[in-house]
């Protein structure tokens, strides 16, 4: 019985910790901007004061944990330095990168069958402007800009918003 009580105590303490964990997760996920709450058109109109700077900041907090400064990490994380431009410049690459960020997966149609290739966490809950800013940041950082075609047009929030409906 003495040990039963200690057993109960450890379950109680573990439960308190789990409740704290769930509470934190709930509070933090609530703080997300709700994509449903703001109409896409309105979101697209959100002004971006300095796309370059906000892209860098967004990249730092959202992406750098895994992608660092664009370098590869093992086989599962390819180098954004290089690969990003390669994808961007291939056919359909511009849209592919947006879809990839929104879905974290890419739709492929083979023999009429729709299949999804899971490969990346989804950032679909982020505002359009933030996704556009992150993509632009990635394309001009770590020497990627030197590889880009000169006439490249930056991503825009409305472009991202448009992909949300197309997919």
């Amino acid at each position: 019985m003495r040990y039963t009580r200690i057993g109960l105590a450890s379950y109680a303490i573990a439960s308190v910790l789990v409740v704290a964990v769930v509470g934190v997760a709930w509070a933090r996920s609530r703080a997300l901007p709700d994509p449903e709450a703001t109409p896409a058109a309105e979101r697209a109109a959100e002004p971006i004061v300095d796309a370059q700077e906000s892209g860098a900041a967004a990249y730092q907090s959202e992406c750098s944990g895994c992608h660092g400064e664009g370098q590869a990490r093992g086989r599962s994380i390819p180098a954004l330095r290089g690969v990003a431009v390669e994808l961007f410049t291939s056919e359909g690459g511009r849209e592919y990168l947006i879809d990839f960020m929104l879905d974290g997966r890419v739709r492929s149609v083979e023999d009429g069958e729709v299949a999804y290739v899971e490969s990346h966490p989804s950032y679909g809950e982020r505002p359009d402007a933030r996704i556009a800013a992150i993509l632009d940041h990635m394309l001009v950082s770590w020497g990627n800009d030197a590889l880009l075609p000169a006439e490249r047009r930056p991503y825009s929030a409305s472009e991202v918003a448009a992909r949300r409906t197309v997919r």
Partner: protein
Amino acid sequence: MLHWRTGLLLVGLYVVLALVPLAVGLAPPTPSGRAFWLELSVALGFVGLGQLALQFALIARFRRISEPFGIDLVMQYHRQIGILTVLLVLAHPLVLIAWRPAYAAMLNPVADGWAGRAGVLATVAMVGLVVLSLWRRPLRLGYEAWRVSHALLGVAAVALAQLHVSLTGLYVDTPWKHAVLMAWSAAFVGLIVYLRLLKPFRLARRPWRVADVRPDVAGTWNLVIEPDGHDGLAFAPGQFAWLKIGRSPWGLEEHPFSFSSSAEQHARVEFGIKELGDFTADIGRVPVGTRVLLDGPHGSFSCDFQAADSLLFIAGGIGISPILSMLHTLADREDRRPLRLVYACSRWDRTAFRSELETLEGRLDLRSVYVLEEGHEGWTGATGYVTREVLAPLLAEQTVGRQVFLCGPDAMMMVVERILVDCGVPRSRIAMERFYLV
């Protein structure tokens, strides 16, 4: 009795400390919120790190921490919460993978970066800890080897988990957060450095020598030690000490033994030791004069910590040791309170310290009831286990201010505690201590 206010305070402190890494992670600047499952996974990881580091405080033998509960209960808690912590830590990646299977790529130690690798290795170390502890005996891992593995895997788990957090860096991307978390982990790991390196150094300055190793009945020895160059040790009867016999102060071979001699004698202390395998099998061959380091006294199983008008002792096997110490002490103090002893053993010729108990019956108001698993020809006493029939008459005899002291194998203590409670003995009047800590 449980000093419940201190106990509650310590439990509160424990919970707060367990949440420190999470609080540091969430302190601004914080990355923007993300999906629920992702945040849940991160929070689980941080709480896992908090718990993991706290385990070092539990095992560091701080008397202030263990006294309100009893050190065996602290160890029991360590064992239970350790398992729960590993489950929390396992949930940390599993939540992510269940939510988005692509995250499974992080688990590949060959392909993924060092952050992932450190996380995977930390988890492996923790699972290893639990497996080796739960199945130490079936795995035929000796106590010593287990202790070494436990300490090394524990330190490795905290270090790797901390590395995982630092390298992932999403929530600790400022220098002060890195610094605070690393200092926090290092402080707890430092406790084991204190326990294994600094404390032995202090103990080595107050060494003891083996004065005698006296055989009692088959398989039981009385280890007698005397202080070497100091005036000995004050302890409460029923307490125990960790002994390091004849090794370097920094060796890991160390065993908890209950004092069996009178607490009134500070300069010659004895321990009743039963050959149970491992180190205790060789106790009879320890030469006189061998140096002994004594870490103690520990434990709250003592008649000195309980106000009582009558005392009922219930011992199983070598659980008699701490009770013998209490009886010797009470005899030296010429205590006149009524004392009763129920002593369960396998066989009469394996019943240790019989002659000492006989002498004590002459000096105290003590009556002993022996219960043998296996009686022999001419044995008129009780056989089998300690039952309600054995205990009821003794409980009827002592009704005023009775305190029960129970020490024996786990299974016996569980059964006897149940009988006592069924007979109306309040739980607060039953003191227990288990002697197999692992």
